[in-house]
């Protein structure tokens, strides 16, 4: 928020900016960076040519996305005019917002004379990212109803983008079945995890909401 680059949608990454390959999932309806990270591998890496196990039928030929320096970004940002702050500020958008860029404002921090030479101009909230990542993985592995990311829409998308026959939905006359995923723990293993968790003792203030 302080940086002025919105971290929503397909242009969420404040480093790649508009040079990423995110796309919208056909069934899930969300922006996805699925297999967009092969471009950071060395050019001759064998994963880049692998058509079978990653995005079906796609070979990654692009090099890593460019990383802009503070001066370059300063030039880009200063081309945008002033936005008027207040109730209306959410409604005014720079032309091309969320299509070619995700700038919402020219942040006040650019006024500091040394800001453009700083290597880090934003600060991601690591604590919340960690927490959300953990919750998503945990709920998926424990197969929590309504919270798992391995839902019907995800299975439909897998059929579209991946070559994983064992994960696809099985249509059986009048019924549709979701085959059990290999990463989901069975009942006994789940019980063990819960038992282990119950036996844990943390320092005061170090764990909450478990």
């Amino acid at each position, binding site marked *: *928020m*302080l940086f002025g680059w919105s971290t929503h949608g397909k242009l969420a990454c404040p480093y790649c900016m508009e040079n990423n390959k995110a796309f919208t999932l056909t069934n899930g309806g969300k922006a996805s960076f699925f297999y967009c990270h092969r471009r950071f591998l060395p050019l001759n890496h064998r994963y880049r040519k692998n058509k079978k196990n990653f995005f079906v039928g796609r070979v990654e030929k692009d090099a890593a996305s460019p990383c802009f320096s503070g001066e370059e970004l300063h030039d880009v940002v200063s081309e945008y005019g002033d936005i*008027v*702050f*207040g*109730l*209306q*500020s*959410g409604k005014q958008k720079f032309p091309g917002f969320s299509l070619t860029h995700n700038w*919402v*404002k020219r*942040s*006040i*921090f650019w*006024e*500091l*004379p*040394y*800001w453009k*030479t*700083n*290597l*880090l101009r934003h*600060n991601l909230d690591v604590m919340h990212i960690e927490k959300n990542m953990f919750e998503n993985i945990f709920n998926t592995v424990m197969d929590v109803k309504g919270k798992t990311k391995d839902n019907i829409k995800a299975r439909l998308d897998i059929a579209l983008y991946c070559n994983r026959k064992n994960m696809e939905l099985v249509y059986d006359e009048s019924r549709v079945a979701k085959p059990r995923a290999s990463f989901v723990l069975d009942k006994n293993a789940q019980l063990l995890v819960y038992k282990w968790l119950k036996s844990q003792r943390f320092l005061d203030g170090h764990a909450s909401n478990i």
Partner: protein
Amino acid sequence: MKDSDEPLWDGCTNHSKLSAVAQVFTIKSDHGLSEVGFDKIIQWTRSILPEGNRLKENFYAAKSMMKPLGLGYQKIDMCPNFCMLYYLENAEMTKCMTCGHSRYKPITGRGKTLVAYKKLRYFPITPRLQRLFMSPRSAEHMTWHQTHDVVDGVMVHPSDNKVWKLFNSVHPHFSAELRNVHLGLCTDGFNPFGSFAAPYSCWPVILTVYNLPPGMCMRPEFMFLSTVIPGPSSSGWNIDVCLRPLIDELAQLWSSRALTYDISRKQNFLMRAALM
């Protein structure tokens, strides 16, 4: 300062007028005592002290006595829709220039004081940083970020990382003076009335002094509250409006330095500060 020499009552050796009040204040803040509770304790203490004691009679008098010792803060009126601050060249305006919202609440009753809809509290950072150098306990640690032993490949402090080193190499005139201050900024919404009360989100902006060793820089006494952005709704993208006084002061600290006395070296120097 005269109060610190005056004994609490004639013949008292271990307490001055000032130290007695300071200790009651500590008890008040440590245990969240109310103002009425504070007054009651003072009343009772006065009754058991000998005749002619100089303990302040109530909270108001005690606070007035302590006020010159604090560093103070500014109250800046602002538009309730986060459009603008009534600050510097706009200080005299009575209506918001963007949304036209009135600055003051309508006057009701006999009182003629103007009350603003929303007030931003700004705590100037320069005197607080200067105070760090004035105290012998913290002044010697203010160069720790450069003088500590660095083990290759181990990061014990932000000063060991790439961002910090690049900053120092780009600005050699800044890094040459080890006492120049590196600041970190963080802010988050928080509800002062308990999480289940009416939704209210006030955003304290906190500055951290990264010159200090890791054990010190994250201690509450070395984290400086610089701005309190009032609620009830969060400012969202308009946070830039509320940071204006802070950015102005930081820009000033970078370009025109602040004369500071360093007690550990017993000399004056020109202090600069940078936000990392």
